């Protein structure tokens, strides 16, 4: 049981896919202009991770070793298509914001990495827990990054204005816009990785 708890919690700090393993950086940098976008992307990826880990673990004994990577990719791509269509149907605003990065979950190294490194060697239950842990760790990282960028760049968190910046004549907050633009993503992530390195030491 303690093993399962470890599988679930390792994704947050010690083996965080973004801060420590440096996997899946494209969506990490691309969609985290606000906390809610980061959370949405994280949860979509987490869903794909859990489902693909489960299926890979279930079919691992039927797939010949030589074709396992293409087989894993098909399994992952199927779940990505499901997420894509579901979000298009029920969460249109978020889907429009995340755009290209939803189909790109397919090439997110975390998903294929966990299928290959964990699910193809372990039982179904541990694989689901591992997928859940890694997925939540990924969501955690994206939400933190999105939160910091949103606070600095838009003066808000999860869309609620925080009133921490001075306002101009029209009452709009004067924020550091660069943080919601492309450069801010690189800079905030750089400092966050340095911080997590420090914590893990």
């Amino acid at each position: 049981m303690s093993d399962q708890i470890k599988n679930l919690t390792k994704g947050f700090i010690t083996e965080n896919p973004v801060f420590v393993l440096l996997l899946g950086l494209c969506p990490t940098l691309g969609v985290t202009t606000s906390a809610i976008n980061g959370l949405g992307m994280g949860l979509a990826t987490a869903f794909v991770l859990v489902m693909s880990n489960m299926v890979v673990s279930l079919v691992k004994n039927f797939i010949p070793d030589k074709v396992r990577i293409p087989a894993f990719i098909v399994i992952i791509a199927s779940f990505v298509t499901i997420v894509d269509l579901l979000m298009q149907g029920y969460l249109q605003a978020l889907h429009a914001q995340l755009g290209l990065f939803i189909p790109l979950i397919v090439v997110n190294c975390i998903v294929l990495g966990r299928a290959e490194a964990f699910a193809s060697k372990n039982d179904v239950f541990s694989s689901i827990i591992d997928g859940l842990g890694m997925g939540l760790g990924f969501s955690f990282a994206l939400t933190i990054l999105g939160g910091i960028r949103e606070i600095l760049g838009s003066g808000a968190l999860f869309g609620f204005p925080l009133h921490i910046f001075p306002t101009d004549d029209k009452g709009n907050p004067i924020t550091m816009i660069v943080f919601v633009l492309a450069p801010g993503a690189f800079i905030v992530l750089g400092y966050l990785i340095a911080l997590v390195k420090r914590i893990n030491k």
Partner: protein
Amino acid sequence: MEYIVIIIAAIFVNNVVLAQFLGVCPFLGVSGKVSTSVGMSGAVMFVITIATIVTWLIQNYILVPFHIEFLQTITFILVIASLVQMVEIMLKKVSPALYQALGIFLPLITTNCAVLGVAILTIQKDFNLMEGVVFAMATSIGFGLAMVLFSGIREHLDLMEVPKGMRGVPTALLVGGILALAFMGFTGLA
């Protein structure tokens, strides 16, 4: 004229790495040396261009006529994965010299999101085949430009005194941020 707009937009204004965040993994991973970045950029250009042509043909002659566009993600990733394999085998036979130069980078490209990203973007932007090819090539030139600039800076950074906690990836990301800031200067050009 249209082509020039596509080329300038893809290389400078919407740089694939620094503005769209596609292909960040090889950008950070392989960019230690200028020579390897040049090799990687060459391999990426080769694969992106071929992949865009093939996926464009599949989209317009198979997926659309049969109304199975929802299979786009699955089809494209499989096509790209097998294409990379095929290119690798063919290069080995046809041009061993080129294979020597690009060989080690080819397997890495399957998981480079720039390849799938450009293939999907070409469809989303409703480009015709020729525009798609120009867009793909210009995007990979932009990728190469960012890679080479970045690795040039990193080669010098290795010689600098950097605070202990910031060594390696954190500094690399900060440099990426400053480069992205510089590329923002191109906004509005095309």
